[in-house]
């Protein structure tokens, strides 16, 4: 049974989904997923900062839960030309990952990485290859942070570069989400170079299986750590006595 309520004005939409007894409406579950995403996004931003040798500013990551067909309306970036790197997870659970950059910003980044004098001078093939490489680095560092934290294997497939308008790129992922569930869960971590005004974003569309897996593992981890913390406190308490 599924019920959903959406509010377009709010950045975070409230929803209630029940699938096979698993409930995604609990704030704790969303909080866990948001925290995992934040860890990954922080790691990815660090790797980007190391590549550029300049500070990278990251926004507080967001998690959106809303019906898939409302996502383009929510972002309002219909015709914006986008360069995106797409990677798909294979293994214990499926997940789509996207690194989204505005096309002009992607050109500038590629020029910086190839030490090209200006963005206009860079060869299109070289630009595509560079951005694909950057996407691989960022998405893999994002995944490896989450995988280390939760203790599962997250193995991505080879990356794929696509240059198109925002709506045209995102609709493929929304179809996949729509086939699996009535509510899409989107994690979004925005970042910006300190010398640029254009934002880029890491977007993750975790499948229902991956959401369950991440939450279960994190809950186990929380329980273990919590008991260990109590023990440590008792130990300190005993010693002080």
């Amino acid at each position: 049974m599924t019920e959903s309520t959406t509010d377009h004005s709010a950045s975070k939409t409230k929803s209630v989904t029940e699938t096979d007894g698993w409930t995604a409406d609990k704030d704790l579950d969303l909080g866990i997923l948001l925290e995992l995403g934040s860890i990954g996004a922080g790691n990815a931003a660090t790797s980007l900062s190391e590549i550029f040798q300049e500070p990278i500013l990251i926004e507080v990551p967001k998690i959106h839960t809303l019906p898939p067909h409302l996502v383009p309306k929510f972002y309002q970036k219909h015709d914006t030309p986008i360069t995106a790197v797409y990677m798909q997870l294979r293994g214990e659970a499926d997940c789509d990952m996207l690194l989204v950059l505005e096309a002009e910003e992607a050109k500038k980044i590629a020029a910086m990485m190839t030490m090209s004098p200006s963005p206009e001078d860079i060869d299109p093939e070289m630009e595509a290859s560079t951005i694909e490489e950057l996407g691989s680095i960022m998405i893999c560092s994002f995944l490896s942070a989450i995988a280390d934290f939760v203790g599962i294997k997250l193995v991505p497939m080879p990356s794929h570069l696509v240059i198109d308008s925002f709506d045209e790129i995102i609709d493929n992922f929304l179809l996949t989400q729509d086939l699996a569930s009535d509510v899409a869960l989107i994690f979004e971590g925005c970042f910006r170079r300190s010398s640029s005004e254009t934002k880029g974003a890491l977007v993750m569309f975790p499948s229902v299986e991956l959401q369950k897996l991440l939450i279960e593992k994190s809950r186990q981890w929380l329980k273990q750590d919590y008991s260990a913390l109590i023990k440590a406190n008792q130990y300190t308490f005993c010693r002080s006595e």
Partner: protein
Amino acid sequence: MQIPPFQPLSPINKSVVNFTKMAQNSVNSPTATKKHLAPQFSQSKVVQNHAAPPIEEVRVNMAEMKVEDRPVALVTNVGSCVAVCIHDSINKCGGLAHIMLPSSTVTRNKSFPLKYADTAVPALTGALRKLGKSSVALSAKMVGGANMFPNMRSITLNVGEKNVEAVRQALVAEGVRLLAEDVGGNCGRRVSFNVVDGSVHVRNGRREVKII
């Protein structure tokens, strides 16, 4: 830095300006002859037919349908989804539906009929017939159904092709003639459907504009 949105009609408008200038220059220049003028005039005439002033654009979002009898262009962006444009040439009205999936039979949630080809096409034709207040023959044009990630066919389940096939069947069932289509491939498309003359401007990922 904010990048301004692309305007689909701009290349055509630019070319009109260039042709007009060329024609004026050749008329003003003393060396101009009838032989030089002839092809330039004919070119400008052809292009001027499409050089209508830019009209108001109305956006159609995913899993939405809009029907208009005002002089507007219905605009949407499609990747694997399909945009179905149905035109009523007698009453000068038209409608566009942005279809996501081929069949409503596979879903448990029936609350969004405009998502599916088999339910959205009858809804669109029904709305147009109601708007036109007559049972004139409708004609359709279809755009989309791309496979954006051809190397990953198994992952995307090839929904694009299934969408196209489902729309074809739904149009046949509704008795609507399919006049033209721009489907398949591996890039997204921006669709701009002029409801007055029924023309559809399709801009692909390489920013080329095609009129169907």
